[in-house]
């Protein structure tokens, strides 16, 4: 498990992991925090945030040096072994362990345990990817799985756990700037031709920009109109001061949501949408399983489903999109998307279907890459360690990492309105190691101030061994005590993911303050 607090963030998968542990499975957790599963693991590698590459290269080094790799699988199904060998040569366990800040015995032990377990599965979430090296971190994990032959079989694999109910589906459907539905590239002329024929209009050629770039493009005046549907970047984006300034500058901002969110407050027009209980459709979960949701109650007031609003607006812009039902939309998706081609509402009753499902009689695909990889042989990559964008220094000597807690969710527009969940964690708390707390004279429940190069928040302290000395953890759900006032917007150059998991901060005891102290570096907010 790398950078995944599974029992809090994917509780039902967490249950299965605990079951596997009770049945004798070995568990390695690489996470800077001592999460519940880390406490139950044979090896908890409490790495310094952002040192994943060094740690994983060190493990690959051990697996290669001790001959623990699967020669047959590597020969038959991969390429690039020499490149990988040459790179990880430079990461002997002692050095790798020193960079990552973990005991060398744990690193070596974990490498041996992973290689010995057959099969072994890797799970990761945003603790691995929200770094300037996010996509490289994933390649390093893939190296380990390929070296040990742990792909394409039950109980193995490199498994990202998706954080939102339909983040998989939104990606599958092409809500991404470079791909059409089914990850078909916008720059591929054949693909465009197919969609142009289906939709009856010429399509743009150049890739679009990602969510983080949108904020910058508004700030620079390149982007003028933004239509935000069911998202709240004013709490979930890094460096909120910048986000607020940029969104405030948009010539036209329209927000479609269930609630008047922090982002909606900045809009010119707000359109009321409906919840999952008021509409029909499908969600695709983290195991690529497409499942039905069904309308259970009437819509609230004049609120309408997102799809209906979009179709109405299209008609007003001279391009009517007319569907009699969501099933009909799915039929169009299936026609244009190879991995969804066999999907229809009739087939989704009951357990749903796992894509790829290429034909109407295909049973779906629970395990990928069983007989081959899309590109033929899988590539092993030599990846060198790059430190986080922002490192502690004299002015900001500590590291802040952010995440979620079990009983809250994203910007709390949903959990904050359920009395039981709200009561479970109504306010943010920053986790501080007892050593740091003692040095600063802080006790649990005290008001403390966190300052980064971008902003400042005041929140209550929770003194705990869950974090190592020098590290603090703050959940990002809260409008008051908003962790993302502090976070660093530096991006992974390929995946365009911001480094939400590492930034440099200073911890102070505020002289005396109101309950909700928070500010931007230039005093705004």
């Amino acid at each position, binding site marked *: 498990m790398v950078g995944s607090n599974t*029992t809090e963030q994917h509780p039902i998968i967490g249950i299965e992991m605990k079951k596997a542990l009770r049945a004798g499975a070995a568990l390695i957790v690489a996470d800077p925090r001592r999460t519940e599963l880390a406490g139950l693991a044979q090896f908890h590698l409490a790495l310094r945030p952002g040192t994943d590459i060094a740690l994983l290269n060190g493990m690959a080094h051990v697996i290669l040096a001790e001959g623990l790799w699967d020669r047959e699988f590597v020969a038959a199904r991969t390429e690039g072994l020499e490149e990988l060998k040459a790179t990880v040569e430079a990461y002997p366990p002692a050095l790798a362990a020193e960079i990552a800040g973990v005991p060398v015995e744990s690193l070596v032990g974990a490498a041996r345990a992973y290689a010995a377990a057959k099969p072994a599965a890797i799970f990761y979430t945003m603790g691995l990817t929200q770094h300037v090296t996010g996509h490289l971190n994933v390649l390093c994990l893939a190296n380990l799985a390929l070296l040990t032959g742990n792909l394409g079989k039950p109980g193995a694999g490199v498994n990202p756990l998706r954080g939102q109910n339909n983040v998989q589906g939104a990606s599958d459907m092409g809500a991404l700037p470079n791909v*059409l539905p089914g990850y078909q590239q916008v720059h591929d002329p054949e693909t465009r031709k197919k969609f142009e024929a289906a939709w009856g209009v010429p399509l743009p050629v150049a890739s679009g920009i990602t969510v983080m770039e949108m904020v910058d493009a508004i700030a620079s005046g390149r982007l003028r109109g933004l239509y935000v549907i069911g998202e709240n970047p004013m709490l979930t984006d890094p460096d909120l001061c910048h986000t607020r300034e940029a969104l405030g500058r948009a010539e036209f901002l329209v927000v479609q949501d269930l609630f008047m969110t922090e982002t909606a407050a900045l809009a010119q027009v707000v359109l009321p949408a409906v919840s999952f209980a008021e*509409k029909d459709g*499908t969600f695709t979960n983290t195991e690529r399983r497409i499942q039905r949701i069904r309308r259970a109650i009437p819509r609230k007031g004049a609120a309408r489903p997102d799809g209906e609003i979009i179709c109405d607006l299209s008609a007003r812009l001279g391009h009517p999109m007319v569907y009699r039902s969501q099933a009909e939309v799915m039929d169009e998706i299936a026609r244009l998307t190879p991995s969804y081609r066999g999907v229809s509402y009739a087939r989704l009753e009951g357990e749903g279907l796992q894509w790829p499902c290429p034909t109407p009689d295909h049973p779906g695909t629970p395990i990928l890459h069983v007989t081959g990889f899309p590109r033929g042989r899988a590539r092993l990559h030599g990846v060198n360690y790059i430190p986080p964008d922002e490192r502690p220094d004299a002015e900001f000597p500590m590291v802040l990492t952010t995440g979620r807690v079990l009983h809250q969710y994203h910007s709390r527009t949903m959990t904050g309105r359920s009395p039981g969940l709200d009561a479970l964690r109504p306010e943010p708390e920053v986790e501080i190691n007892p050593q740091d707390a003692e040095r600063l004279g802080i006790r649990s429940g005290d008001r403390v101030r966190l300052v980064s190069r971008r902003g400042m928040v005041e929140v209550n302290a929770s003194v705990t061994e869950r974090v190592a000395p020098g590290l603090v953890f703050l959940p990002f759900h809260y409008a008051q005590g908003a962790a993302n006032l502090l976070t660093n917007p530096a991006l992974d150059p390929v995946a365009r993911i911001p480094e939400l998991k590492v930034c440099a901060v200073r911890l102070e005891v505020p002289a005396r303050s109101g309950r909700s102290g928070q500010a931007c570096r230039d005093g705004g907010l």
Partner: protein
Amino acid sequence: MAECSVFIDGKAALVPTGTTILQAAGAVGISIPTLCHHPNLPPIGVCRLCIVDVEVGDFHKQVAACHAEVQDGMTVRTATPELERARRFALELQVADHPSECLDGETGEPCELRDLARRYGVTKRRFMEDEARYPLDESSPVVTIDLNRCILCRRCTRACSLVQGQDILWIMGRGDESRVSPALSLPLRDTACVSCGQCLAHCPTGAIRDKHPLRPPVRPEAVVTSVCPYCGCGCQLDLNVSGEQILRVTSNFDGPANRGSLCAKGRFGYHFVESPDRLTRPRIRRDGRWEEASWDEALDLVATRLREIRDRHGPDALAVLSSAKATNEENYLIQKFARAVLGTNNVDHCARL
């Protein structure tokens, strides 16, 4: 796999070795009353409601159907007058110290004990003083534990330890003093309880119940299967609906990803749907003030402004942020709208955040 041939109330069944009598009966459409048993949990055989007569060769006795496995050549009788009398007696004992408001159905909570008591014509004998023996444990933010309604079926303790793996609830004390409780009789809030509500989902009587139901509990008019709107596990759940409102969320034990399990968010996080803060009409900001508008007015304004910007600055001066909360169909339409209607590939969602 070896198979056993059995006769249940005269019907022949061929089932794999290791099948319980209860499962075998279910396979041929015969239902046997149960109370402590739950198909999601290993059998424990404490309520004796499911007793049946079995005969194998010369051997003849009564066994608990939830617990006992079939044997080849076994003959089973599930509803002789003698068995029905024994069941009635077991229910009378259960009901004797059960709160009467509960049996009268005044609570509105679904209750398996009440349903069985009615079926067997068991009413509460009023000679026993109806006193609440136990104070409620309302320390948890999500569940209330009311031991007065507890029938000691141990479904909650098994759910907590075997399904959730949390081991919070135990049977404490002996005999008459037996009760369900966290270790050391701590209030639930002071334990490592994760508020998952698996105990509640398996409780047959409402002894463990939702602390903040949206409305006073009534029988749902409809139960609609859907998928949890929170994380990517994709847990199926049942929306219980009455009138035009969600009453509560209950477990759907057929969901392939979760088989009935839900976390605190999926089980208790649905109030937002019925929140009074829901936006119910479009709004337009004019001179810094929000005004409600009709759909025509709002969408005409959006269309005009988007068209103006596109005409003046080109389609790439526009962008759409789609949603990981929206359905596949909606995401498909949203990206189609960006590309085919606005003419830009500037469409993304929060997969990166």
